[in-house]
């Protein structure tokens, strides 16, 4: 599903590579934590998967697409197969909850009747049924993140990338968001989550990929955050 082969990413402004010969293979339907301190290369990892950037060396395959060699005009096709969730939610403040989810479908050309059908379904899946007409600022942080997840999942991506999705949330709310991501994972969607949150990683006991200074230093099938803890 996601395969990195000896991927190196150098930025012009830095002498040390942001990613240094990283090879990872993630199967369809896996739930993977991507951990490591700030500056370890997690964000670069995610950016390369989304083709926000291209690797300096190595190959990246996502959902059978050779990401680095993908021509510009086919990048949208890649991104339609990947859902994205961020720490800061990135909701459109002037659109309702339903409008935010609908927007993501409209801009990829889904017909109006399809959008009308999908939006309530996906809002129900994330536990926001009945809140379609609310504005984002009327919701709690946890609920806003649910909207973001609904938006990311509305087009049924085969991969869901989550970059610190619980970074702005309290522990209880974080737990709810993790349950939601697990539920999405159970539909067969591969979930790759970058996080700093020890307790979540430790309690979930899923595969852990750890980066440090751009190098892959650990890949445990059922890992915890800190080695030996």
């Amino acid at each position: 599903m996601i395969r990195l082969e000896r991927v190196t990413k150098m930025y012009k402004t830095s002498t040390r590579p942001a990613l240094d010969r990283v090879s990872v293979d993630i199967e369809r339907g896996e739930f993977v934590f991507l951990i490591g301190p700030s500056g370890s290369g997690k964000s670069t990892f995610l950016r390369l998967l989304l083709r926000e950037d291209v690797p300096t060396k190595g190959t990246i395959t996502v959902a059978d697409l050779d990401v680095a060699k993908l021509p510009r005009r086919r990048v949208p096709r890649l991104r339609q197969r990947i859902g994205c969730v961020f720490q800061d939610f990135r909701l459109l403040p002037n659109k309702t909850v339903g409008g935010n989810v609908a927007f993501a479908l409209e801009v990829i050309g889904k017909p109006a009747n399809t959008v009308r059908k999908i939006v309530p379904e996906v809002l129900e899946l994330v536990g926001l049924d009945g809140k379609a007409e609310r504005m984002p600022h009327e919701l709690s942080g946890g609920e806003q993140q649910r909207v973001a997840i609904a938006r990311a999942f509305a087009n049924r991506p085969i991969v869901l990338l989550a970059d610190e999705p619980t970074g702005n949330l309290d522990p209880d709310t974080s737990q709810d968001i993790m349950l939601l991501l697990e539920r999405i994972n159970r539909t067969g969607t591969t979930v790759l989550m970058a996080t700093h949150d020890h307790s979540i990683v430790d309690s979930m006991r899923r595969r852990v990929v750890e980066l440090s200074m751009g190098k892959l230093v650990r890949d445990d099938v059922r890992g915890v955050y800190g080695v030996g803890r």
Partner: protein
Amino acid sequence: MRSDFVIREVVTGLRRNVTMTVAMVLTTAISLALVGTGLLAVRTIDRTEQLYSDRVEVQVALTADVSTADTDCSQPVCSGLRSTLENSPLVASVRFESQQQAYERYLQLFKGQSLAEVVRPQSLPATLRVRLNDPEAGAQAVREAMVGQVGVRNVIDQRDVVSKLFDFLSGVRNLTFAVAVVQAVAALLLISNTVQVSAFTRRVEVGVMRLVGATRWYTQLPFLIEAVVTGVAGAVIASLGILAGKFLFIDDLLSGIVSNGVIPPVEVGDVLWVSPILLMIGAGVAAVTGYVTLRLYVRL
């Protein structure tokens, strides 16, 4: 492509930057109005030139003694000159105007003015009025053949007189085009700036669009259409402005020389001829500027 979505985005964009939009429309309108005025000037010049090329003659004025002595060009000096002219292939026709005829025309021309009273028939020369097949080469040939001949006072090419009018009209044209160019630069910069501002205010939307895999067209089209809409609005206002200008100013300003047949009138049809050109320029320039701006300054 979901057209309802694109239209909604365009309307939102135009409403969000309403002051900028108005400034952009007005600047575009002014520069296009100037371009339109220039085009109308060119058209008028062309038609005036046509008008005159049918009418303009070369006048061979005869000396005073020949003028007085010969009233119908029957005497050797005048008839000799006449046959020389008529034998030239460059000449279409030659007409003799006697002193008396010249005097009558003069009286009619300055009717009611004091100038009409000071002139006597004797003070006007008789002329041979030459129509040419080829105004360019013919005028020169007539001049060369006639100047210095016995009985010839001077040769007047009416085109020399008319060319002053043409110079004036081309001056008007060049001035309007020059101002139009400066104004167009301002309009271009405004369009470019507005597209940038528009893209900046919608960077969150655009970010989401990129992330969920919207194609380039979906992300860019609203901005491009916004630019084109203002370009078209500017062209429409410019056309209406020119039309209003025609009825309010141009008609009045030119009424004298138009009724005397000096220049042809500016018709509504002329404005209708200019409008689609302005529309195409407005829409085209706005689209290209918008596209280039998005390419150069905005990461979509």
